[in-house]
């Protein structure tokens, strides 16, 4: 039995904003199924009472003094953008319908 279907992979790709091709869907579905089968044995470990570890460094609420510092210059940041206008990032159309 496969762990993941082609339709599920297509759905996940949409969620992850990846416009994958039909060929990729065919290939990824098989490969991801193989990966999931190989990692599924993680379920063998009896770990119900075990607390999770998200991070190996036990630091919480790392704070620093709230001192104003210069940030990166606007022009330096916008220079890296694919498109900008009027000192702002220019983005593609966001609204679905013409206003």
């Amino acid at each position, binding site marked *: 039995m496969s762990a*993941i279907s082609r339709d*599920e*992979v297509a759905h*996940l*790709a*949409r*969620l*992850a*904003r*990846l*416009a*994958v*091709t039909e060929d*990729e869907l065919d*290939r*990824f579905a098989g*490969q*991801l199924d*193989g*990966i*999931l089968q*190989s*990692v*599924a*044995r*993680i*379920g*063998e*470990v009896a*770990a119900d009472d*075990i*607390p*999770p*570890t*998200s*991070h*190996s*460094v036990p*630091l919480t609420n*790392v704070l*620093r003094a709230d001192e104003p510092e210069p940030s*990166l*210059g606007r022009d*330096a*940041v916008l*220079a*890296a*953008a*694919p*498109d900008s206008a009027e000192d702002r*990032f220019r*983005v*593609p*159309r*966001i609204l*679905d319908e013409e206003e």
Partner: protein
Amino acid sequence: MSDVTKLSASEIAALIADGSVSAVEVADRYLDKIAAEDGDVHAFLHIDADGARAAAAAVDAARAAGEELGPLAGVPVAVKDVMATKGVPTTAASKILEGWLPPYDATVVERLKAAGTVILGKTNMDEFAMGSSTEYSAYGPTRNPWDLDRIPGGSSGGSAAAVAAGLAPLSIGTDTGGSIRQPGAVTGTVGSKPTYGGTSRYGLIAFSSSLDTPGPFARNVLDAALLHEVIAGHDRRDSTSIPQPVPPVVEAAREGARGDLSGMRIGVVREFGTTEGAEPGVIAAYQSGVDALVKLGAEVVEVSCPHFSYALPAYYLISPSECSSNLARFDGVRYGLRVGDDGQRSLEEVMALTREAGFGAEVKRRIILGTYALSSGYVDEYYGQAQKVRTLINRDFTAAFEQVDALVSPTTPFVAFPFGSRTGDPVQMYLADLYTIPSNLYGGPAISVPCGLSEGLPVGMQVMAPTMRDDVMYKVAAAFETTQAALVAPAR
């Protein structure tokens, strides 16, 4: 004058400090060698000749002015292309960042510059550090200087190959699941993953934030420790940076070089001995390595780490989950590629087309896998369970380090493999990190040191130590190194 491309970093620094050679001459010699030989190896994605000469000239000027030079002043270094370098192209070997010029330096890069090292350029890697062979670079693979038909390991394959080929005496890599140690092993170089949080992630393009760790490559253990000391230490810009002094790694490497490990207990992990798929030649070289540790006076004992065999599946749930979140930042708005913006398509369509065109297959696979492992209905079964297993692996380490000072294992189950032999099946590629992943999940330091040859190709011995005991790791590694003939890639 001796050929500086054959010397260690500390030897080069000594020659510059006593005036036998200028830093600019050293930089030029390396830049010439790169120009002549990197066409075959393809260790570099970008050469910064002007920046290197300027940095070298500054060291020479400082020396002329009578200023005291740091221990690596004037020594060339190559930097993995995942570290941000101000004004110098930084792509993470991805098309989605082609042409990006970072407006700032990573902390590691800042410290390299402050120490007077000379950055030669940026090295090739698997895209976003996801891979074990550099075959997943969007700009073509790096070739192993030992055999140009074979992989140099990954993801820091370019950094490893640069040092192995004599194109740089030192380099910087990053290690998330073995990406410094495995390329170190298969290229016959020393590759060290510091304690997680011991080196800053600020300016490291994130793959898996709870695991990513910058660290050094070098020709010998002392050089690696010298570079480690330059880049390590607390950084307030990284909230996971450990606010403690850097362990005395250089002192430990010098102490280890005396070749005496008497009084130390070193553990061999029982569960690694039964692992299927390790090559017999690798196991044989490793066994002689363990014998050498005994001859150095160490007491070698077997310890059990029962959950290590679940480290690989835990890693391949945790790291893709973190990657799917981290790589959401590549949206075609603030930097990098944008595709399909014709004035008609929506933001969401442009985003999906941009990410489809900009990411390679392995990156897409891991984003989809991580999205799956985090999705409602599966998150407890996969991501949550993996985090619990991470706790159990940490407990295995803690229990082991109550019995021994350090653990050893082979670095990777196989020597450098031929191109294309594992790209068809991601699971086969993932096995390269079988022995290296536990230390990433735990956070403790681990290093790969050359340990002889198998079928004419380098094998690595891994030394693992407790968190923030990087000094113990360097001591054992440096002592072990005294028992091994240096591995030098055949000249072309």
